[in-house]
């Protein structure tokens, strides 16, 4: 029986399409199979037409496919039709590969058919895999490097402290000062390595969303920061739905930055939050010296400081860490350059369930 889509002209057009094109009837029997599908599966059209399409998939998709069709016929429930998804396909030689499948339904001469468009995504999947692996390598490298670098550093610190302890009375004042500077540099390097280690490993610590008392979390965080006595923190009494560990890391870095870089020994920190489409807008504002606009991007990079480390001790990893944590959740952080009476960091933090209750 000749079908409406068996017209030669149509076949020629279909064969020029780069995507694989497969038409099946409502029993799953293949009616049409274009050249790209031939290339993708290794079967000639004649080998598959008239057979069930499940031959192109490995188990368990094979069984599932028959059930899908039966289900759809009985219930009209669309699991894939009009949606598309990634599935595993099986070639003639038995090898499997990931592909993207989009299915649509059509009616022709009172018959129902399904048109499947397929695209080989194994290259994309391989790239993603490769990228994941190289990211893991990098994290592992940072971890091992900072771990191994710490040990000789500890050796240096110990040796200096032994000289000081054992020979303090024989050392000229200048030597004692210089030993002090060695220890200070060694401590600084330890801090750099610890922060690098922390940065490399932070993703493993990040938790899923939960209800968080923002007021409590921020005040607790402030209590962990050195020299916090004269800093006033105002936070709304809000319960929100975010990652607790993520928020803690972000707040700790932002609040300790405010205090560390403030031009006075006292100051005001204001945290504000409101729900928005797809998450929350969060901001942290201070009355410190502010950050010039030209540095708005650089401050979020690794190991960046705007002052000499002899003036303000810091690894320059704080905001990089903030950025990494927020990026992990798909959010955004930036400096509000319109705010000039201090510094305001604004954050969009995605949350699927952006509940917000005061009190």
């Amino acid at each position, binding site marked *: 029986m000749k079908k409406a889509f068996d017209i030669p002209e149509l076949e020629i057009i279909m064969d020029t399409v780069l995507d694989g094109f497969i038409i099946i009837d409502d029993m799953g029997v293949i009616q049409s199979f274009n050249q790209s599908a031939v290339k993708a599966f290794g079967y000639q059209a004649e080998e598959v037409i008239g057979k069930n399409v499940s031959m192109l998939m490995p188990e368990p998709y094979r069984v599932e496919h028959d059930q899908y069709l039966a289900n759809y016929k009985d219930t009209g429930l669309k699991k894939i039709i009009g949606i598309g998804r990634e599935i595993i396909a099986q070639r003639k030689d038995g090898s499997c590969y990931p592909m993207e499948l989009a299915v649509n339904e059509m009616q022709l001469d009172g018959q129902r058919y399904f048109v499947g468009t397929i695209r080989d995504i194994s290259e994309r999947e391989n790239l993603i895999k490769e990228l994941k692996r190289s990211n893991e390598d990098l994290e592992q490298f940072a971890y091992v490097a900072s*771990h191994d670098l710490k040990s000789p550093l500890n*050796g240096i610190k110990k040796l200096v402290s032994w000289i000081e302890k054992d020979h303090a009375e024989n050392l000229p004042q200048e030597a004692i000062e210089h030993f002090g500077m060695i220890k200070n540099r060694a401590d600084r390097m330890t801090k750099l390595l610890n922060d690098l280690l922390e940065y490399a490993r932070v993703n493993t610590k990040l938790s899923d969303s939960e209800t968080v008392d923002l007021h409590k979390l921020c005040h607790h965080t402030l209590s962990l920061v050195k020299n916090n006595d004269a800093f006033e923190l105002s936070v709304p009494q809000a319960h929100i739905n975010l990652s607790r560990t993520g928020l803690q890391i972000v707040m700790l870095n932002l609040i300790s930055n405010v205090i560390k870089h403030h031009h006075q020994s006292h100051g005001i920190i204001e945290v504000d939050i409101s729900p928005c489409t797809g998450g929350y807008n969060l901001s942290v504002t201070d009355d410190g010296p502010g950050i010039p606009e030209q540095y708005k991007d650089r401050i979020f990079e690794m190991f960046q400081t705007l002052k000499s480390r002899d003036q303000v001790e810091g690894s320059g990893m704080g905001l990089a860490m903030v950025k990494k944590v927020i990026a992990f959740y798909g959010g955004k952080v930036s400096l509000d350059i319109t705010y000039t009476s201090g510094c305001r960091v604004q954050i969009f933090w995605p949350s699927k369930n952006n509940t917000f209750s005061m009190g």
Partner: protein
Amino acid sequence: MNNNEVTLFLIEDDDVDAITVERALKKRRIANPVIRAKDGMEALSLLQENKVPKPYITLLDLRLPRMNGIEFLDEIRKDELLHDMVVFVLTTSHDERDIKATYEHNIAGYFIKESAGDELLGIADMLQGYWRIVCLPS
């Protein structure tokens, strides 16, 4: 048994760490003799040549050149003469796998350098208490 005669057999590649142990012992006025090997291979040959007088206990680092700590434990546990050695592990490694693997080799205790204090005084205190009352195979 006079426990002052217990020798501490230290297997440690880092000179600073070895001195740290010696200084900690000195600070706690522990005068027991210390014999040091710089890796598992050297430790094994010192033991086989009877250069470590009994009774002794061993303080073993894990990251070592040539033969690491776990490989060393492998060797002694299958050695007819050395399998009953009392070995404490002293390492920078926090790795769960190291802890598990070494206890599976019947170590007497696993200590992480950081937790033993900057100057490893915790280790000296532990050894002092241990030596005071322990009975070792002679």
